[in-house]
């Protein structure tokens, strides 16, 4: 049996050996295909696994690098707030509030003389959400006299949404504003589906019907006029794939589409599409998503889009560059009207509505909104942000940066600076466009930077002179000399100082002989007047007498924390500092001797609206209250009667102001730093190649300062007199004690009991008859 079995099997083996070649070939082939098939399935499964992982990883995680968005300070309305009708109008216009005759929906405003009614939008400011509100503002003398919210008088602060003023974009250049599906106008989503993918709700990612229809249309027309891609496929292409056209890419695209449809709802896919889609270009910046496109083309938030605007934006999906409504308005109009027809066919609007709307103009803004128009201020914001954040995070995390910029003051600053530079060039016959300028406005007390201009063209993104132009500051430094003198105890505002010729031995045979600007000696003059008139000889003499070390110490305490050349010439401003540096210096004086680092940022929030960081006010006492009071007094005299007295030919004398001019050697730099009770401004005028100019601090920078301050809402300086200070009548010639109604008598604040003990001879003021009661009671 065994044998027979063995012989049978042998014979079978021999048989099979005989027939084996064809059988083995087939089996091998089968095996081969089996293996190939197996491997293919395995590869497909692995491939799908990889694709699936890739799709879900990106889709469930962070899909995009989001730009940090930068906002101005929100306008706050309250009774007593200093807001002019013009400023209010300008700010609301920048926020795209529509001027109408009757308020019917949020985002509208009506203007009457002295009365403004605003329908504020729903808004979230500082983590607090406010509903849409009707607000009535009545102003008198540039101040809010009454405020009503929804018809009721209120003493609360009404907060207006902040203006977006800039962004820090991802390295990719893609920019978008993320929107949730529930915040998108339903008509937009419906139109998008009607135009791009009618069957979106029902298919599973790939629509063979759509492919067949597209093929048919393309065959008929002889060119590719219609795509068969569903919204999901388009999203996959945009989100995960390159523009490459190959079979393998098509396979990957299909797998990804299926994966996306398997894992995510239609709502999630549509929301992502609406945020992802490319809709325009602004230089290097790609405009993605409907929310940003709405702002980019219409300067409107997405929720305010009307039907024809929706039609245009949906039409742009087909080719944002080809149908660019600014460059190719005819093409764009035709495309919009096609979309309107589709909307009518789909029952979204009536045929008549489509017809009527197709006659409407595109109404896109001429240029993209000016929200990225503050390069100098944004520079400062970036500088301060980079101390706490990595650039990569700023470019990708979608942070919301709330700053201190006042759009209305920024606009006043920009206009004043560029207009005045042109008129100076004309008036002084300076080469056209050769003058440059920079200016910074700061809120006194809160130390918030309100406006910055770093170039006469405020949109120029290059060299920022306000922050980075280090120029000799001239007489702007002088308050530090006199502060050091007052602090020494050897001087008071009444002390007479010698303004005759001065020579300072620098050693090795070198002698420094500074001259007055008018090349005259002014003899002995009281200290306050030496500062107010900005005499150089007396400043150099006082500085050397007090000691350079003391003067440098005062400069440092006033807010200049960089090393300075230890030479006497610094006394007359031979030290290079920027307008921003000098803003710190003068803010300390304006702020009653309290140093506060200037701030451009209030808070930083995450993209979800959670606060990451606040930038609080900081303060340190740098000058005694009495000395701060004295320096402020002398600077007020400079504004009333000194080198800056031209201020009051424009600004009402009822407003107490203070300031200091600065002019450097050969009049290469013109400076002015000055303040009111609430606002401080530092200005520089010069040329980039450091040319001599026919301008002084008074005839150059001061004029821009005056232009700005005459338009800004001002509080006059109103210092609280320290209890140890008393006003005394002093003879301004001799510095001795005088009496009222005596010639040359001036009322000066001095430390109580530190008045001069010797009385000057009183020569009654000529031409004035003493009142009878004074004659009766004697002097």
């Amino acid at each position: 049996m065994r044998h027979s079995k063995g012989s049978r099997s042998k014979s079978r083996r021999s048989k099979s050996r005989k027939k084996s070649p064809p059988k083995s070939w087939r089996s091998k082939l089968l095996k081969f295909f089996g293996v190939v098939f197996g491997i293919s399935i395995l590869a497909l499964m692995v491939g799908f696994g990889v694709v699936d992982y890739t799709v879900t990883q990106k889709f469930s995680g962070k899909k995009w690098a989001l730009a940090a968005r930068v906002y101005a300070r929100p306008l706050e309305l309250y009774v007593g707030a200093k807001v002019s009708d013009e400023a209010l109008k300008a700010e609301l216009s920048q926020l795209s509030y529509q001027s109408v005759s009757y308020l019917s929906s949020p985002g509208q405003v009506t203007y009457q003389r002295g009365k403004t009614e605003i329908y504020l939008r729903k808004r979230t400011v500082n983590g607090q959400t406010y509903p849409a509100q009707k607000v009535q503002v009545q102003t008198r003398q540039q101040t809010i006299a009454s405020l009503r919210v929804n018809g009721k008088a209120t003493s609360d602060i009404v907060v207006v949404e902040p203006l977006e003023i800039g962004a820090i974009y991802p390295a990719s250049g893609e920019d978008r504003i993320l929107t949730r599906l529930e915040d998108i106008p339903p008509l937009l989503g419906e139109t998008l589906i009607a135009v791009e993918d009618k069957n979106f709700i029902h298919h599973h990612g790939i629509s063979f019907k759509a492919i067949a229809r597209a093929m048919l249309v393309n065959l008929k027309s002889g060119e590719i006029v219609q795509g068969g891609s569903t919204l999901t496929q388009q999203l996959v292409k945009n989100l995960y794939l390159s523009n490459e056209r190959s079979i393998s890419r098509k396979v990957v695209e299909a797998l990804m589409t299926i994966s996306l449809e398997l894992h995510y709802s239609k709502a999630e896919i549509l929301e992502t599409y609406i945020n992802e889609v490319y809709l325009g270009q602004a230089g290097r910046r790609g405009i993605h998503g409907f929310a940003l496109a709405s702002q980019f083309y219409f300067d409107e938030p997405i929720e305010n889009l009307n039907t024809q605007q929706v039609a245009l934006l949906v039409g742009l999906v087909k080719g944002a560059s080809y149908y660019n409504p600014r460059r190719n308005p005819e093409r764009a109009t035709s495309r919009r009207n096609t979309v309107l027809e589709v909307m009518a066919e789909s029952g979204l609007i009536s045929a008549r509505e489509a017809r009527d709307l197709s006659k409407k103009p595109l109404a896109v803004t001429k240029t993209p909104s000016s929200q990225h128009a503050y390069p100098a201020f944004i520079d400062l914001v970036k500088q301060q942000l980079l101390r706490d954040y990595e650039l990569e995070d700023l470019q990708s995390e979608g942070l919301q940066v709330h700053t201190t910029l006042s759009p209305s003051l920024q606009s006043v600053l920009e206009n004043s600076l560029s207009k005045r530079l042109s008129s100076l060039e004309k008036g002084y016959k300076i080469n056209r466009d050769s003058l440059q300028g920079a200016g910074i406005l700061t809120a006194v007390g809160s130390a918030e930077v309100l406006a910055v201009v770093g170039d006469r063209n405020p949109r120029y993104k290059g060299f920022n002179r306000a922050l980075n132009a280090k120029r000799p500051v001239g007489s702007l430094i002088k308050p530090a000399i006199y502060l050091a003198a007052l602090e020494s105890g050897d001087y008071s505002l009444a002390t007479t100082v010698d303004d005759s010729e001065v020579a300072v031995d620098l050693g090795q045979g070198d002698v420094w002989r500074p001259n007055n600007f008018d090349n005259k000696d002014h003899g002995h003059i009281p200290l306050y007047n030496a500062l107010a008139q900005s005499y150089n000889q007396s400043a150099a003499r006082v500085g050397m007498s007090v000691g350079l070390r003391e003067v440098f110490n005062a400069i440092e305490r006033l807010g200049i924390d960089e090393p300075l050349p230890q030479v006497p010439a610094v006394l007359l401003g031979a030290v290079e500092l920027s307008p921003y540096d000098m803003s710190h210096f003068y803010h300390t004086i304006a702020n009653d001797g309290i140093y506060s680092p200037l701030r451009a940022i209030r808070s930083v929030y995450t993209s979800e609206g959670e606060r990451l960081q606040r930038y609080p006010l900081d303060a340190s006492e740098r000058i005694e209250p009495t000395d701060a009071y004295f320096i402020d007094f002398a600077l007020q005299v400079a504004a009333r009667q000194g080198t800056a007295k031209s201020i009051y030919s424009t600004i009402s004398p009822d407003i107490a102001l203070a300031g200091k001019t600065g002019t450097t050697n050969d009049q290469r730099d013109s400076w002015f730093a000055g303040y009111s009770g609430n606002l401080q401004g530092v200005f520089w005028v010069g040329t980039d190649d450091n040319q001599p100019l026919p301008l002084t601090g008074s005839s150059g920078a001061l004029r821009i300062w005056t232009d700005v301050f005459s338009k800004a809402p001002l509080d006059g300086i109103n210092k609280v007199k320290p209890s140890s200070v008393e006003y005394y009548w002093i003879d301004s010639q001799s510095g001795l004690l005088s009496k009222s109604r005596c010639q040359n008598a001036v009322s000066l604040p001095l430390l109580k009991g530190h008045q001069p003990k010797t009385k000057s001879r009183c020569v009654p003021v000529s031409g004035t008859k003493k009142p009878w009661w004074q004659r009766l009671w004697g002097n």
Partner: protein
Amino acid sequence: MLFANSRNLFFVTNTVTNIVTNLNIRKKVHSFIRIFFVIITCAGAVGCATTGSNSSAPIIPGQEQGQATGSKTPPPPAQAPVNSTSRVIDDLLAKGKRALSSKQPMLAIEQAERGIRIDRTEPELYLLLARAYDALGEVTKAANFARQGLRYVSNSQFLLKQKLQKFTEN
């Protein structure tokens, strides 16, 4: 000198008044004489002064003298605001105090800073900052803000002055 004059003249005023009191026309003359002497007192005090004004706004040289120095600019009058922001400041102070008592010093700081943006010379706002920073354990900051607040306290605000001074003693 001003006060010395006032005291002497007040004595004279009273003496004259006492004499006139004995007459029948007492009531009418009494008030007239009082007003007359008060005016004389003030005028005399001004005429005799070697001290200038005690107002918080400085008298700019040349302006007080007017014709004497040939200045053309009038002195800056005290500014009367159209509408005071005091109610807004009071509201912010109240909110800040509530935040402090509910142990939210950061919120109190925000309210105080908001107030400083509106009226930077309101000393109560600096007291609120000092208290809030003190609650956070930042005593140096508390002292700094208290010192700043002290610069804006008027002579009549004794209690406020005391409260602020407490933080500067740390």
